[in-house]
């Protein structure tokens, strides 16, 4: 456990020293403030525009951080050969992967918290009202980001950063296309329909975390919806970490 915390702490320190992170975060904060301007030219639809743009902005900025920082979490250590100094110590490879995961998760928690604070402040300034759904959406966004960290980490354990970023992006696009895929499947023959149905159950379904529409139109979340979404994320992330660990175990250093 101590080793996990040490690796996580180190990963967190390393990522917050990255200048790119500050550049991305700066643009994120600008985006939050820009919601006020865009909202003001929306014919009184400002609250909707601010909520849509704010929630999407928090996700996009953090996703960019994952693509720039998360996708080279392991490969950078391999390239710089710093992984040797870690793995020569009595540290399991699973500990290394879990530590990396929690390190980036902590970084994303900080960036999400900073941007969410500005977002909430903008909503308060605009007298938009703060429903619990907004906070629920922020939590769901963070869970989706953890999901993507696990995907990025898995790819980072065996591919170069650019390829890893592209694969993570592809999984993001697939993960949000499940409704369309299901619709295609309904129009296809039994074999294709079966394949697509299996695919939609096996591939990560990121639409489960997208409750932005419910936030904007104040549609309450049900208890089972929250519970099953959290269970889904926790189990899938665990599987991705196990896969990443096994890939790393097969590698010779």
């Amino acid at each position, binding site marked *: 456990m101590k080793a996990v915390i040490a690796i996580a702490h180190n990963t967190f320190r390393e990522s917050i020293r990255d200048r790119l992170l500050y550049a991305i975060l700066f643009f994120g904060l600008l985006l939050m403030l820009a919601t006020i301007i*865009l909202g003001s*030219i*929306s*014919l*009184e*639809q400002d609250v*909707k*525009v601010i909520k*849509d*743009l704010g929630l*999407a902005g928090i*996700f996009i900025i953090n996703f960019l951080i994952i693509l720039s920082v998360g996708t080279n979490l392991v490969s950078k250590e391999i390239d710089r050969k710093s992984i040797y100094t870690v793995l020569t110590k009595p540290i399991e490879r699973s500990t290394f992967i879990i530590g990396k995961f929690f390190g980036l998760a902590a970084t994303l928690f900080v960036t999400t918290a900073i941007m969410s604070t500005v977002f909430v402040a903008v909503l308060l300034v605009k007298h938009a009202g703060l429903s619990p759904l907004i906070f629920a959406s922020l939590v769901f966004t963070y869970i989706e980001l953890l999901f993507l960290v696990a995907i990025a980490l898995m790819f980072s354990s065996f591919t170069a950063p650019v390829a890893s970023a592209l694969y993570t992006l592809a999984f*993001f*696009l697939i993960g*949000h*296309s499940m409704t*369309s895929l299901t*619709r295609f499947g309904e129009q296809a023959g039994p074999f294709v329909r079966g394949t697509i149905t299996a695919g939609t159950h096996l591939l990560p379904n*990121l*639409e489960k975390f*997208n409750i*932005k*529409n419910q936030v*904007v*139109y104040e549609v309450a979340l049900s208890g089972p919806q929250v519970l099953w979404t959290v269970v889904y994320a926790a189990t899938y992330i665990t599987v991705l970490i196990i896969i990443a660990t096994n890939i790393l175990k097969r590698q010779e250093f």
Partner: protein
Amino acid sequence: MVRRATVWFVALVIFAASVVAQVNINNLNTARAVKRTAGINTYNEPFVLPEKVLANGVVGFRNLTADYYWLSLIQYFGAGDPFGEYRQLPHLLNAITALDPKFAYPYTFGLLILPDQGFVDEAIALGEKGLVEVPHSWEIPYYLGYVQYRYKKDLVKAGEAFERSAQSPEAPAAAKILAGINFARAGQRETAIAIWKVAAESSENEYTRERAKEYLEHYAIIDFYEEQARAYKTRYGRFPNTLEELKTGGLIRDFPPDPVNIELKIDPKTGSVSEVLD
């Protein structure tokens, strides 16, 4: 030292050339703008992806894309179309409501602006989609009723739409008056005025209220012309053949600006003024 100065000199010459090129491009565009319509220089017609592409291609950010199209639509309609066609308006509204079907105001907005741009059927289709997607809204059936009444002259469908609007729990008390009107017997202008009075007093949106006030002003101008036509008859023994005769006959100095810009005509037999689209 000399070499460095030469590099700087060459860089300066190239920069000056780029400035000259840019000025020439600007002049070309200005000349073109004079030949055609003012504003063409800065005009960008919004590009709207087909609905099928939007339905399947926009992953994860459907609301955000709908907002982007909504802001584009406001810029497009607000800045003016130098060709006067606004041909992308129905596509933009369809895209917005396809991406975010619960976004209520685009339905109302479309019902308010599309008919005057010649898109009556598109406005009705949009309104009917709104009835399904935002069933609690009182404004969507209300303006759908107006479009049916005013542009389609379908009194039955207009009555049904106003009835539906009045039944909405969110409808203001004034909206219920419309549900009780016998459209077949009521005067067309009086009915239109009643419709816009409710909108001006009860709409939740400032743009809609302003639009309603503009229509009320438009009908006040028609009343003014009819009053002047009667004065014309007293003076010349007949009603004027055209509205222009009110000016040449010395009854009015200038035509009051019509905020909704609908062409008017006068009936030389009765002196009544009506809209050309009637």
